[in-house]
């Protein structure tokens, strides 16, 4: 009886903070605890006095939830515990790699890319450097349409500006191909434009768009220069 009381008191002490660490006791620890309990019981045996139990509030101590010991399980249950439990666990979520992270240039468009030697990554959004299967597919490219229309527009501006200037007798035509009536100028200039555009698109079809585009832009700028100059001279004088 005394031993039981001493044991309960030791448990109370341990739960009230003396044994704050909740660790799984090892065998050696359990032995130590038993030794301490016996020594404590021996001391309690000497100082044991009747306690006023009526005045002491009854404290319901939480009973420790001991897990089912493996010894109580049969082999089948043990197998379930050790192996099947793991297999029944939900699959760990696989990491989601964003499209950007998986890309050859993880920093994204407009940033330096290591795989491009540190150059800024700009994918060809309009496909100007891409190869095309047919001439028509290459012609449908927005870049080619833009540069072709610019060339045609600049040629019209050049012819109109030059004609306006010539009509006012403030300038003269230097280009021998363009001397003559306006219809003749158009008849010469537009087929030339058509030829240049056809050749440029053909080059673009095989992925060599840079040179023809540069040529067409330069020709457009020259046309614009003479066209605007002609219109200006016709208006001023």
């Amino acid at each position, binding site marked *: 009886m005394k031993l039981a009381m001493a044991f309960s008191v030791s448990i109370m002490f341990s739960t009230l903070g003396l044994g704050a660490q909740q660790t799984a006791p090892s065998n050696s620890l359990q032995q130590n605890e038993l030794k301490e309990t016996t020594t404590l019981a021996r001391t309690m045996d000497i100082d044991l006095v009747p306690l006023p139990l009526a005045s002491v509030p009854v404290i319901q101590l939480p009973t420790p939830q001991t897990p089912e010991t493996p010894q109580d399980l049969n082999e089948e249950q043990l197998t379930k515990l050790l192996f099947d439990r793991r297999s029944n666990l939900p699959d760990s979520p696989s990491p989601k790699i964003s499209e950007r992270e998986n890309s050859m240039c993880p920093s994204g468009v407009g940033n330096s890319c290591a795989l491009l030697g540190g150059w800024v990554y700009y994918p060809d959004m309009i496909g100007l450097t*891409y190869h095309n299967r047919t001439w028509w597919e290459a012609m449908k490219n927005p870049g080619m349409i833009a540069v072709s229309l610019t060339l045609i527009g600049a040629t019209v501006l050049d012819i109109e500006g030059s004609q306006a200037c010539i009509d006012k007798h403030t300038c003269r035509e230097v280009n021998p191909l363009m001397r003559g009536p306006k219809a003749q100028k158009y008849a010469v200039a537009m087929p030339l434009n058509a030829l240049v555009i056809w050749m440029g698109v053909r080059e673009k079809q095989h992925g060599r768009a840079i040179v023809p585009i540069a040529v067409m832009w330069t020709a457009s700028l020259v046309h614009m220069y003479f066209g605007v100059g002609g219109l200006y001279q016709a208006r001023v004088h």
Partner: protein
Amino acid sequence: MKLLPRSFAIFLCLGLTFGVPASAGPKKNKSSVSKTTQRVIVFARKTDHGIEYRLNKQIYIGKDLDYVLGELHIYANKESAIAVVLEDNMLLSDVKDVPVMAVKAGYTDVRAYVYWKKTGRMAEILFGPVLKANADPRKL
């Protein structure tokens, strides 16, 4: 009155430019163009003549590969990818050559690998974030 012949001439020229070459070519069935997912593998190695690229058992030098990749991309869809396998005798600066060509051709998924000839092993080359080179180590 002058506006009519001018606009007619412009219309005629536009027709010549865009219409005639398009209609002159042989009619091709649009449905025959099928874009597939391509897995292109380019082997690169350094030889005495320079860098040599091997693609589909064909050997290309320099800009030839640029053209071939462009032609291949015509029939490639968006999921197509290019893997560049660089032999270990290549320089680190050569790693960019094929990716630059591939991006120009229209591919967006390009992976680079290094191949160690003696051990027969290979590994993907994955770079970290690109930083601006700075003499001050604290700013790196």
